[in-house]
């Protein structure tokens, strides 16, 4: 009797200990299995059976091209299964002296600068062809040879001014319509909000397409397509989560999100212009700058739309303009200093996600402020605003296409 009760008393303590040990075992078991698999892979090397003596697959991506008075420099990134060795470099079908920095084989995913003391011709095309030790060739075309802008305080300042001109100024101009837009009725409000959604829809398509294009140019190791999808989804979901902290955003909060989304897009746009500078392809005529400005004025109108029922302080407008337009300046600088297609693709993808978030929120705001719910989305004024937004952006985008 005594014994039985002792056992009964001991049980409650033994139970959880055994349970946790079992859980620990179930944690160890799969880890041990993995360990065994690795040991087997290393010891047996089953992959050797797939080896057929063929040379390893090689890929090489050109990320940057710098033309200066002492020749051409290209930044290349290696891909493929093994480190690859650059044996010779042709320029315009001629073997040319070159220096590689750092020298030696280029590891998977690593980069190297190739310096060619080549007497390139201003305004003409040149072709660089890199020959590896296996005889594989990788060609890069310089469509129009012009000296790459040298970076100094003056050039950075003038680039910054250009950024202000194409990013900040038009947004500010758009916001100056604010007083005129106040006092619009329900239909006017619907129209303006739908206009915002329309312009954002254009930016979404534009940013996504460009992100995929740049992703295609980047080294395979970055898996551009997946990167664009994931970055866009991440920024969309994170911004949704942040934006919904205190319920659906409206008023200033919504305006801020619109400004942020547009700002991220302008960052990508700035990167593109900066990269054009870096590539020496900057035929940025005044019509192009004017095009960007007209294009971006709509963005200012869109940002002020949710604020029409409030009366925010002037500094808030300034801050919003800075948030939406300022990134263009930063993008220009980054783009001209450290351009690589995968980073531009990433920035544009993040921008696309942000824009999608704003579109969702503005549409939700439209439904709420209108009072008719989802009916308002299909009202003639809404459709008219949507169409006008897309059409205006499409039309002005024609001005900026090179």
């Amino acid at each position: 009797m005594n014994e039985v009760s002792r056992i009964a008393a001991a049980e409650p303590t033994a139970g959880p200990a055994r349970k946790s040990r079992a859980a620990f075992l179930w944690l160890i078991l799969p880890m041990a299995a993995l360990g065994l698999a690795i040991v087997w892979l290393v010891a047996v090397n089953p992959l050797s059976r797939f080896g057929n003596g063929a040379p390893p697959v090689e890929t090489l991506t050109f990320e940057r091209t710098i033309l200066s008075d002492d020749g051409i420099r290209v930044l290349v990134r290696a891909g493929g299964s093994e480190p690859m060795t650059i044996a010779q470099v042709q320029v315009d079908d001629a073997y040319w002296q070159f220096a590689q920095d750092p020298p030696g084989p280029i590891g998977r995913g690593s980069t190297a600068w190739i310096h060619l003391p080549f007497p390139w011709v201003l305004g003409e095309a040149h072709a660089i062809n890199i020959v590896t030790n296996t005889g594989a060739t990788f060609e890069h075309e310089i469509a129009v040879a012009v000296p790459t802008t040298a970076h100094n305080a003056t050039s950075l300042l003038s680039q910054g001014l250009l950024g202000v001109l194409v990013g900040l100024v038009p947004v500010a101009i758009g916001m100056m319509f604010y007083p005129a837009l106040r006092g619009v009725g329900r239909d006017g409000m619907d129209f303006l909000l739908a206009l915002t959604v329309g312009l954002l829809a254009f930016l979404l398509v534009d940013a996504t397409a460009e992100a995929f294009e740049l992703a295609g140019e980047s080294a395979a190791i970055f898996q551009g397509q997946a990167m664009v999808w994931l970055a866009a989804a991440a920024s969309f979901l994170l911004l949704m989560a942040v934006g919904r902290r205190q319920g659906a955003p409206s008023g200033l909060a919504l305006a801020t999100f619109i400004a942020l989304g547009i700002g991220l897009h302008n960052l990508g746009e700035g990167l593109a212009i900066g990269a054009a500078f870096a590539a020496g392809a900057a035929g940025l005529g005044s019509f192009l700058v004017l095009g960007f400005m007209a294009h971006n004025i709509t963005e200012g109108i869109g940002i002020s739309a949710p604020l029409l029922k409030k009366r925010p302080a002037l500094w808030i407008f300034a801050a919003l303009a800075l948030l939406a337009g300022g990134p263009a300046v930063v993008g220009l600088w980054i783009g001209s200093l450290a351009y690589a297609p995968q980073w531009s693709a990433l920035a544009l993808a993040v921008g696309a996600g942000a824009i999608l978030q704003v579109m969702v929120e503005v549409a939700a705001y439209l439904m709420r402020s209108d009072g008719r719910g989802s009916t308002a989305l299909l009202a003639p004024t809404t459709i008219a605003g949507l169409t006008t937004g897309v059409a205006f952006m499409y039309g002005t985008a024609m001005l900026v296409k090179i």
Partner: protein
Amino acid sequence: MTRWGPFEITRRGLLWGGVTAAGGSVICASGSSIAQSEHLADHMADHSAHTAASPLPGHGSAHGAMITVGEVDEARNGFETAKLLTEWDTGTVSRLPDGRVLRTFELEGIDKEIEIAPGIMFPAWTYNGRVPGPSLRATEGDRLRIVFRNLGSHPHSMHFHGIHAARMDGVPGAGLIDPGDEFVYEFDARPFGCHLYHCHALPLKRHIQKGMYGLFVIDPDPARHPELTDIARSRLLGTPENAEWQEFAMVMNGFDTNFDNENEVYAVNTVAHAYMKRPIRIVRDRPVRIYLANVVEFDPINSFHLHANFFNYFEQGTTLTPTLSTVDLITQIQAQRGILEFSFKDHEPGLYMFHPHQSEFTELGWSGMFDVVEAIA
């Protein structure tokens, strides 16, 4: 939580999804951004130094930089480009019962990776492990016996430009043999001249372009050319008259390294720029004779241009008098060949260039220099 749509979205759900997606994109994007920024720093330092110079390209010495970088490992290749010029394979000589010379050559087909320009490896098919194959040299009227063993991975043959029986032609059904087999080609050496041999297995283009070719020179027998005995003797290897001459074997070839049916490397005797980096030494007072053959695939025509001099040309080498006199450029179609004769005796010593006048070939490796000197010390 607010509701906007048929389902409820929680903030936590969005955050979780967002973090997952962000993690994925970070993994995708994590290349060697550290390495890149290091290079960038280097580059920026360089660049700021350049900006002090003129904004437009000055270029200066850059025009002299058109050459391959580095050196070919000739020990690994197993043949030296300098020696390819003067190495003749005269076979083993014996007498037939009727007193005629029997000349026996032995060749092997071997798969071998060779370095055709510094750092560029080419998976070649070779005769005796070298490209071009040995320069076979016989005398007009010799009985020739060529023992060919195929140690390679593909069927191969030896097709000789010359006169022989159909059975000895080196085409499918007549001396084309499988890996591991052996065949003996037998015929008389005629006509005299500068010929070539190559593999005639199919696909023909691939077998030639892979490196299976070589010079096949038949020297004239002076006894058969009584009216031009002296000239014939000067051509005949081993005579004192011939020893006066500086003779070079040159096979113009090209290599398609990336299988796009265009050559990435052009050369004479295989290695790009070999005689540019190590000029061919010639003594000023002694005449020069070049046995030149064109085996370049993919480009129909090749050429030879000599700087600061003119030469006589013997088309196919089958005549003892020039077929072209005093020219500084000859063109040769695929498989065309001939003998060039010239002298620098009235020139000042120095470096004299030779190259094809297709600039493309010159710039992709086929060019060289003669280093004309008073006498070899």
